[in-house]
């Protein structure tokens, strides 16, 4: 935190007030409400309720289905993060290396950032459509019958593909900017020290990019966990069936489709705790990183 600063009391309070009020009313109050609900089983219309203590949590942790969804979420998040980060890194390294056209490629590779996940999901449905989607037809040429919505793993693959596609641009922008901010002198020195291109990348460039990569790791994890909601809803066409789903989608399915307020709130609280852990972890590492650089 800064040492130099002003010694006024009323001004910072006035400055902070709007943000704190909004957050208090629209964030903390609802969040506390969700924590309270998670200990009850409540009639959705609000006529009856039973205090069940940790019952909702016990039900969740003893449910094979919930654990299966959690495992899928971890796998999905890992795959989307890994794929979108590594593809973006390759593209950024190449875009940084070439002499002409960097700006053109940057434009071509970044605009998908602005495509809303539900819209991406809708386009994904068309592309992977059973029978007549272009990707389905392409895979059929190789003798694979791709069946979105029927085969669990096919649907999972479509989800990973759409989410990766949707999230490459952000990673690309950060990596490219990170690469471009490496001083020319460092790059030249590296060229003299290290003869092989791959070795140079792993020894010099990658460590310099590591802070960016770490920041992106967190961004990607939260994207895959939360922002893919609309995309998944579009891909399964609102009918989960035997399709895979993520933890956030399950909050929606149980709370919104099923009106199970207690069970859904308990799931929300579990996610809140998860996010809190992630946040603290990120801050620990980020603060240390700021000291180093």
């Amino acid at each position, binding site marked *: 935190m800064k040492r130099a600063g002003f010694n006024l009391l009323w001004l*910072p309070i006035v400055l902070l007030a709007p943000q704190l009020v*909004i957050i208090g009313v629209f964030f903390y109050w609802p969040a506390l409400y969700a924590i309270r609900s998670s200990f009850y089983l409540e009639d959705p219309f609000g006529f009856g309720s039973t205090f069940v203590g940790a019952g909702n949590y016990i039900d969740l942790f003893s449910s094979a289905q919930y654990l299966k969804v959690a495992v899928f979420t971890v796998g999905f998040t890992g795959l989307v993060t890994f794929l979108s980060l590594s593809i973006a890194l390759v593209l950024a390294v190449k875009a940084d290396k070439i002499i002409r056209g960097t700006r053109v490629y*940057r434009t071509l590779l970044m605009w998908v950032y602005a495509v809303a996940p*539900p819209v991406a999901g809708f*386009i994904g449905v068309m592309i992977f459509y059973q029978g007549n*989607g272009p990707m389905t037809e392409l895979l059929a040429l190789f003798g694979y019958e791709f069946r979105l919505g029927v085969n669990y793993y096919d649907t999972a693959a479509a989800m990973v593909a759409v989410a990766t596609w949707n999230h490459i641009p952000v990673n690309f922008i950060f990596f490219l900017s990170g690469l471009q*901010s490496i001083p020319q002198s460092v790059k030249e020195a590296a060229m003299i020290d290290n003869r092989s291109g791959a070795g140079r990348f792993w020894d010099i460039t990658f460590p310099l990019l590591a802070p960016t990569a770490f920041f992106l790791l967190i961004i990607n994890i939260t994207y895959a966990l939360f922002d893919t909601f609309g995309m998944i809803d579009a891909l399964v066409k609102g009918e989960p069936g035997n399709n895979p789903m993520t933890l956030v989608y399950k909050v929606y399915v149980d709370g919104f489709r099923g009106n199970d307020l207690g069970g859904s709130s308990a799931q929300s609280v579990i*996610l809140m705790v998860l996010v809190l852990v992630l946040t603290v972890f990120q801050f620990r590492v980020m603060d240390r990183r700021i000291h180093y650089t």
Partner: protein
Amino acid sequence: MTAAADPVLVATSRVRRKLSWQTIADHAILIAGSLLMILPVFAAFMTIGASDVDISRHGMQFTDGSHLAENFSKALFIQGGFTGAITGSTMLLNSFILGIGFAIGKIVFGMMAAYAIVYFRLRFATFAFWVIFTTLLLPLEVRILPTYEVVHGMGLINTYTGLIVPLVASATATFFFRQFFLSIPEELVEAARIDGAGPVKFFIDILVPLSRTMIAAIFIIMFVYGWNQYLWPTLITTDEAMFTLVRGIKQIYQSIDGGSDIPEFGRALALAFIAILPPVLVVVIFQSWFVKGLVESDK
């Protein structure tokens, strides 16, 4: 060993030998990546030119575009709903109000809060920062029902305030501005104080102009984020005149699975395209600011 693999030689011969195999391979990879990004949306766009029956039968396709104008005009001007208030154009307007209102709200509140946290010696600054920061990663989706009740209780259903303000209740902008302010040299505030500038003057005359790029970048990020919201608008707008584009698409593709009629694929795709276009244009046109802002926030 080939010359291309020798880094020193490559470095020196870059200017002379533009067309090495290495360069061609690099461009090939970049072109492949660009195609990967473009083709899905391009295919969707081309399909808008087909009739609903053809799309329903054959899926995505390249067409002569004979239905392009028809599908776009349906998407923009067909009056949906009972009151006839849902047209593509009103949804477009609502999306702009949501995107811009959200971005401005985020920037104003975020900047004020970040300024208070970074530039004042406050005992509770760290606490305030954490209170705000905890909201950063927890999306509205997981606390949406209680939020809805709060907003409803305040009588804000079907108002732009109810649509925008609850979305503002997270700390992304505050966080970005905090990071940016921390990267500004301390000497600046010292110099300002020596010159006798008060905190308000320092904020308005020095900090805001310095943050211009940052503000622009955050505006773009937030505009895109606000524009692309859909679960909250779906819940909070019951008045048809308040619908946004992203919500409207959901409504149309839902009717696609109703099975009661020929699905309006053409209209849905046209609407999807209209929903994609403004945020994409904003990102592409202002990409330098956008990139600069994103990267500076990472400091």
